[in-house]
């Protein structure tokens, strides 16, 4: 029986189809989850995909973080379920308190849409074991509010505990503090990043297949469990 990975759709979510495709490409079963449901349909992990949930009203991810399905995700994450937030999903996980910090308007004010080089910092989280430390990945980045902000104490804690997953290399596209592109929680089960690994799983449709490793890593973690 293959592992089941849920992909949440909120009103305004855009990348649920690609996220589900990435899940299937990795060899897991993709299960659609709806924002208004109080039910995770028995999935083993959850992907919160990108887009503009609830039109980015109030703050990006703020309304979505209170959606019924997120209550279930927060509870499941507390029990150790792997959760990945991509782009708007990262914003939602921060707003929900599953990850520290917040994402703010890009320092250059422009929406940035390009293929972005990242460097792998952490290879022990549930979502990054397939990568080599220091490896460089090329995946799409497309966001207007992707500047990662947190207090110096939180940043020191993240770095001290090895919880920075990825950093931007070459030039920092959005003003994220310490070039942080993605982070994980204290247990290495909940992860969030602004770039889009689900758009880089197949050289036919993306710049590389560098993003597939995140989904394969999660599958490894589920099989090992």
């Amino acid at each position, binding site marked *: 029986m293959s592992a089941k990975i849920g992909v949440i759709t909120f009103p305004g979510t855009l990348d649920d189809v690609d996220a589900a495709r990435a899940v299937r490409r990795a060899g897991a079963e993709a299960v659609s989850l709806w924002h208004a449901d109080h039910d995770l349909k028995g999935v083993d992990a959850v992907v919160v995909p990108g887009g503009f949930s609830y039109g980015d009203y109030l703050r990006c991810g703020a309304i979505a973080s209170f959606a019924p399905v997120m209550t279930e995700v927060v509870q499941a994450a507390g029990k150790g379920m792997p959760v990945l937030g991509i782009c708007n999903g990262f914003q939602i996980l921060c707003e929900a308190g599953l990850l520290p*910090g*917040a994402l*703010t308007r890009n*320092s*250059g004010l422009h929406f940035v849409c390009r293929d972005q080089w990242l460097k792998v910092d952490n290879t022990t989280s549930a979502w990054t074991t397939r990568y080599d430390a220091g490896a460089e990945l090329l995946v799409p980045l497309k966001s207007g509010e992707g500047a990662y902000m947190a207090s110096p104490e939180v940043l020191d804690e993240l770095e001290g505990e090895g919880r920075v997953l990825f950093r931007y290399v070459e030039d920092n596209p959005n003003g994220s503090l310490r070039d942080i592109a993605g982070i994980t929680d204290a247990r290495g089960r909940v992860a969030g990043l602004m770039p889009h690994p689900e758009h880089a799983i197949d050289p036919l449709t993306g710049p590389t297949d560098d993003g597939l490793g995140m989904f394969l890593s999660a599958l490894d973690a589920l099989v090992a469990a």
Partner: protein
Amino acid sequence: MARVVVDVMPKQEILDPQGQAVATALPRLGFEGISEVRQGKRFELEVADDVDDAQLAKIAETLLANPVIEDWTVRRVES
């Protein structure tokens, strides 16, 4: 009923590129002497009389503002 205003501002140490863009635009329009602009949000709430200050503070910090990056103030105004 009472009218309550909640002001939400980016924390001083958080970069506010929108405010900076406004500040940069002002001299181009001929307005001199403005050294800094910070941009925030204002919420106006009509609240029942039995909603107390503690509840208003809870509303501000759990939904209207993200305390990681924003400061907020709550005040009751004449409606």
